[in-house]
């Protein structure tokens, strides 16, 4: 229970359905700026008050060390490698659906439930991940790498609801979190990830900005302050808009040029998690970032990796993000963009 409307409503629905429920809040980091001494103190208090209202036990678990190892360190490392990390996916995989799930099972639970908008469907004794029915809120992208065997211990009660419905359920149940605002996307970033990297002691080293032909067109302040597809922030005037096309950390180089160079048809994903077999003849839908609507593509197996070939070129394919493969609403699998 994060103290938001989704996990509050999840707990409420399960209690109503007759489950024996207890709530857990994950304390993940200490934020010095927003609330002294304790992460998300007001969020954990909201969660506790909802739990008291529902008359279920509630515990705050300290996962600061684990969060640092599996999420924060990874986040910093990826930027150092010139990639754009997706910490929420790592947090889901390691913190929620590994460490927390193990703790929940140790404590005698049969299931771990979260407020994610995704569906967990049992077909022929195997669990499959499906998109939530609310197309706009669907969070299956963030869950693609949960091992299939673990899905059997996980419940996503909100996958069958639309966000507006969840708010209505929460309001009718008088949950104090019913009208609470959506949380920001990356919980430990207050404003700009660049400030976070700087406060973590990662300082940028100046380097060259080259165009697509290798011609020097300016200076950058440190390659990890840039993201592929980003426009502006380079302070280079060419007479036409330029975009970050590529980042080469080994040479401390940022490549920037016209927008057309951002479009590519192919990409490779690695560290694959598959729920179903890949049919190389078939067209799937592939998402390359959370807010990407998904485009038609064919998949080729290359050893342990998968090559994705889109029907039409895609803008800003970004290493470090996830490529997630869908067959209609079913998550077939996915991996990390190289």
């Amino acid at each position, binding site marked *: 229970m994060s103290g938001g409307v989704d996990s509050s409503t999840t707990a409420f629905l399960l209690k109503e359905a007759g489950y024996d429920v*207890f709530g857990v*809040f994950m*304390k993940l980091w200490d934020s010095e700026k927003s609330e002294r*001494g*304790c*992460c*998300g*103190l007001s969020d*954990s*208090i909201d969660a*506790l008050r909802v739990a008291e209202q529902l008359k279920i*036990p509630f*515990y*705050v*678990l*300290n996962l*600061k060390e684990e969060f640092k190892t599996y999420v924060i360190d990874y986040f910093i490392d990826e930027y150092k490698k010139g990639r754009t990390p997706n910490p929420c996916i790592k947090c889901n995989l390691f913190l929620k659906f590994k460490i927390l799930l*193990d*703790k929940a*099972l*140790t*404590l*005698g639970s049969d299931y771990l439930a979260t407020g994610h908008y995704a569906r967990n469907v049992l077909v022929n004794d195997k669990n499959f991940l499906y998109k939530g029915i609310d197309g706009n809120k669907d969070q299956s992208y963030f869950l693609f790498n949960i091992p299939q065997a673990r899905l059997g211990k996980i419940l996503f009660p909100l996958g069958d609801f639309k966000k507006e419905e969840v708010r209505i359920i929460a309001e009718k149940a008088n949950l104090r979190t019913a009208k609470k605002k959506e949380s920001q996307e990356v919980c430990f970033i207050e404003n700009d990830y660049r400030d976070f990297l700087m406060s973590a002691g990662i300082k940028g080293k100046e380097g060259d900005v080259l165009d697509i032909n290798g011609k020097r067109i300016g200076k950058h302040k440190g390659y990890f302050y840039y993201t592929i597809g980003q426009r502006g922030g380079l302070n280079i005037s060419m007479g036409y808009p330029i975009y970050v096309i590529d980042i080469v950390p080994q040479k401390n180089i940022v490549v920037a040029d016209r927008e057309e160079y951002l479009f590519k048809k192919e990409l490779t994903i690695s560290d694959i998690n598959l729920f179903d077999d890949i049919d190389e003849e078939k067209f799937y839908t592939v998402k390359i970032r959370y807010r990407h609507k998904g485009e038609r593509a064919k998949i080729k197996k290359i050893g342990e990796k998968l090559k994705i070939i889109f029907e039409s070129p895609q803008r800003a394919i970004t290493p470090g993000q996830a490529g997630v493969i869908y067959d209609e609403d079913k998550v077939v699998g996915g991996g990390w963009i190289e």
Partner: protein
Amino acid sequence: MKKVYFDHNATTPIHPKVRSAIEPFLGEKFGNPSSIHWAGREVRAYVEEAREKVASLINSDPSEVIFTSCGSEGDNMAIKGVLMGNLKKGRHIVTTVVEHPAVFRTCKFLEDFDFEVTYVPVDSYGMIDPDDVRKAIRKDTVLISVMFANNETGNLFPIKEISAIAKENDIVFHTDAVQVVGKIPIDVKELGVDLLTASGHKFNAPKGIGFQYIRKGVKILPLISGGHQERELRAGTENMLGIVAIGEASQIAKEEMNEKSRHIGYLRDRLEKGILETIPYTVINGHPEKRLYNTTNISFKFIEAEALLVMLDMNGIAVSTGSACSSGATEPSYVLQAMSLDPLCSRGALRFSLGYGNTEEDVDYCLSVLPSLVEKIRKMSPFYKK
């Protein structure tokens, strides 16, 4: 579900006699004790009666007792007040590494204002050596602050000895006695302490009331200045409910101390013995003899204390781990860390603190569920092989 409360070092239930004593102050006895008229006079008498009862519990003169809002206020008052009152003498404090945050963080706060602090270490039993205190003393040492008993282990520190060392060197001595007052007999004259801090809710009074013993002649400035209340050492209209309650609780404590300590001590020993005998890989933390009769801090090796605490709670049994942050997440215990405990032990340490209201059934119920819970958690541990 049966509910068992084994967390009396955190707080205690209000004694029924205390509850009846404060009832009139929720009704007709509403006056301000500083008022000259009948409404004020009536309640003023109760304030002074309560002060006498508190004084009698610690063998002080009533004029040496100041009512505060809590133990933390008392610790702050003692440390900041004594330093402010003795700025000409120096800016150095001696304390220990295992103090309650009310002392520890107040010292840290003062370090930011150019005061200097020496933190005396503890041994593997969590005990301090009075000689280490002596060695830490400097010419500009103004205050020595050492807790009477540690909240996590229950260890009782050699207060009389340290008090004598302070006296020899003409240094003010303060003791945080929050875990002790109401549990064991205290005689401030015999101990020779200059300041002693207590909190009401640790001995069956409600939260929001505490008291401070300040020996006559100690130079100290108020933490809260304003009106003339409490000998101008603690301004603010008196907390009548709290004051009456802590007076009543002090009287009950004094009258029932012998019998209660025997009963609670027996229960604690029964619990401790039961755990050590039925659950393998368990160790008592703290000093084997020199500790409070109500507390036991036990390490269950190969488990995370957090998990056991949660499972005990699910079975209605309230215990605690060392420290928790404001959100309620358990943090590694700085007290056990200071004792250089094997991490295998400190990770699995739980504190059981017994008190008024606990029964033999409570202990036996706990002993009936605990072994299987521990075994269940250990089965999931990668380090544990039966």
